[in-house]
């Protein structure tokens, strides 16, 4: 089990904190690309594996030229190679098409493990892992909270399920893994440290996926963007609502009956208990 080749699938997202939505034109304002903060732990996990077993870390990302600046960061944070792959004919690809682009990239390199996030922070389809695994005809595990290597090509992965349930899986690699954000705490890489400087000397490689896409149709397409509208829960009689309540309903605030309580500590405790049990 020496020298594992680990591919980290990393996504450049639109900073959700900075982007603004114009509700009249129903479009987003200026977008600021950032590396998905949810992906930091992917690189961290890859680095931990490399520290323990040796090997190479390749960051693979599908996107237009603009993302190269962002990908350079992953080199400074410890990746050995960073590859951008794209097909300039792609317009608004859905996750299925992205999974094909990444498949194409992976078919051009050798790898043992592919690490992916469980859900991206901007559009968050959360479906990338099963799609990629199916394209490559490889096994996959999602929600991985820890992993160990057992033998030459065997991996033991712990998977997180609901409310504290865990499952242990044994699988041979190559494999595709979807990591849970709780798997590690990404380290801090100081600017101008050794790792950082080494990364500064490297540059992002390019690959093209042109004429690879098997099916050019999307599986899911965007109808339109619109103002946020949380679900109106049943049991609210909308015709009897005042104008103010209607506005609150549109903001999804109706039905939350906010209560305030003040009193003796014992009375307060009873009130809290009542609310917990409700």
């Amino acid at each position, binding site marked *: 089990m020496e020298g594992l080749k680990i591919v980290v699938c990393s996504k450049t997202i639109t900073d*959700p904190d900075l982007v603004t939505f114009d509700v009249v034109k129903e479009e987003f304002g200026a977008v600021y690309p950032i590396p998905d903060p949810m992906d930091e732990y992917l690189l961290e996990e890859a680095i931990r594996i490399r520290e323990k077993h040796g090997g190479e870390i390749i960051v693979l990302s599908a996107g237009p030229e603009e993302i190269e600046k962002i990908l350079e960061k992953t080199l400074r944070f410890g990746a050995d190679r960073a590859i951008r792959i794209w097909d300039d004919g792609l317009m608004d690809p859905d996750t299925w098409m992205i999974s094909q682009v990444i498949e194409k990239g992976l078919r051009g390199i050798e790898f043992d493990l592919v690490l992916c996030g469980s859900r991206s922070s901007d559009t968050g389809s959360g479906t990338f892992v099963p799609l990629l695994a199916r394209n490559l005809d*490889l096994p996959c595990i999602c929600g991985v909270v820890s992993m160990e290597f057992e033998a030459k090509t065997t991996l033991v992965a712990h998977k997180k399920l609901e409310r504290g349930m865990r499952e242990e899986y044994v699988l041979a690699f190559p494999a595709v893994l979807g990591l*849970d954000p709780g798997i590690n705490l990404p380290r801090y890489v100081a600017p101008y440290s050794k790792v950082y400087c080494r990364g500064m000397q490297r540059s992002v490689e390019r690959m093209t996926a042109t004429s690879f896409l098997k099916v050019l149709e999307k599986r899911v397409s965007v109808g339109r963007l619109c103002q946020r509208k949380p679900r109106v829960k049943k049991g609210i009689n909308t015709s009897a609502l005042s104008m103010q309540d209607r506005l609150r309903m549109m903001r999804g605030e109706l039905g939350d009956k906010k209560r305030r309580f*003040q009193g003796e500590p014992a009375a307060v405790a009873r009130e809290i208990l009542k609310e917990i049990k409700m």
Partner: protein
Amino acid sequence: MVREIWVYLESDENGFHESAHRMVHEARRTAEIVGGSPCGFLLENGIEWSENAPKLEGLEKLYVIQEAKGFSIETRAGVIRNVVQKKMPHMVLFAGTFTGNELGGRVAAALDRGYISDCTDFEMDDGLVFARKSIYGGKADVLLKWETAFPLFASIHLNSLENISVSSAQPPEVVLLKKDMEAPRAKLRNRWRVPPSELDLNEAAIVIGVGKGVPFSSMSEIYRLSEVLEAAVGGTRIAVHAGLIPVERQIGTTGKWLNSDLYIALGISGAPQHMMGIKDVRKIIAVNMWKGASIFQKADLGVVGDLREILPELLVLLEKGKR
């Protein structure tokens, strides 16, 4: 032919999951919007579904895939795929839990269908079904549509699921199905439940949030509280800095995002960076000494008082209730 709307009812040896009951309502609701007959399906994995079936009011049919105990998620997805392929319902819906989201993704991928996860609603436009989903951290919604043939696959965001039951309805007609399965690629070797103290913040049903207002001396009481309530403990960045909780337990923009049923905020002011991490929580109880604290604007129950006095009283009540 009747168009069937299928919802997956998640269960384990201990019975149906909370999400299963909510999915029953979701089936009815979606059937109303899209048109069709609300149906449920489940894997027979050790629970007494026949006793519970009458409780699944409002479903017209209940498909039971027999003898499916102790299966890995991969095997379950394979079994579901085969059944769906045979019956070809109009829609197949999952709850937006870890398991539901993943099962949906796997089954849809195996059948080459589009899959939309964490929808908040469905809408009809010109005879087509659109799924609404929140993007960019809730800045806007997007209406998505499937470009693939039926069935349409989706999962429903947990915050959109409602717990509404109709008691007058007939119990569903039960249809037993044989399973059809292949050998899995990844072997399931072990299954267990971690103790509440080891629960991750994003999986606990109840989370206790610790802020700057909590003195060190109260931390032991907070951990006792977390034991009785089977809750996870997290907190604000200031609480991390003060050494009250470890950094991986920070909640907020630069920490973890919760998805719990209940958040108990103790001595927390309610800074926007913290509130971002708890926006998906279904109920908030806040204790703060200062009545102007902004956390009260979002709290379902806001208590103005000193947590040093309230905590001991609450523990007495809870521990008495346990015995």
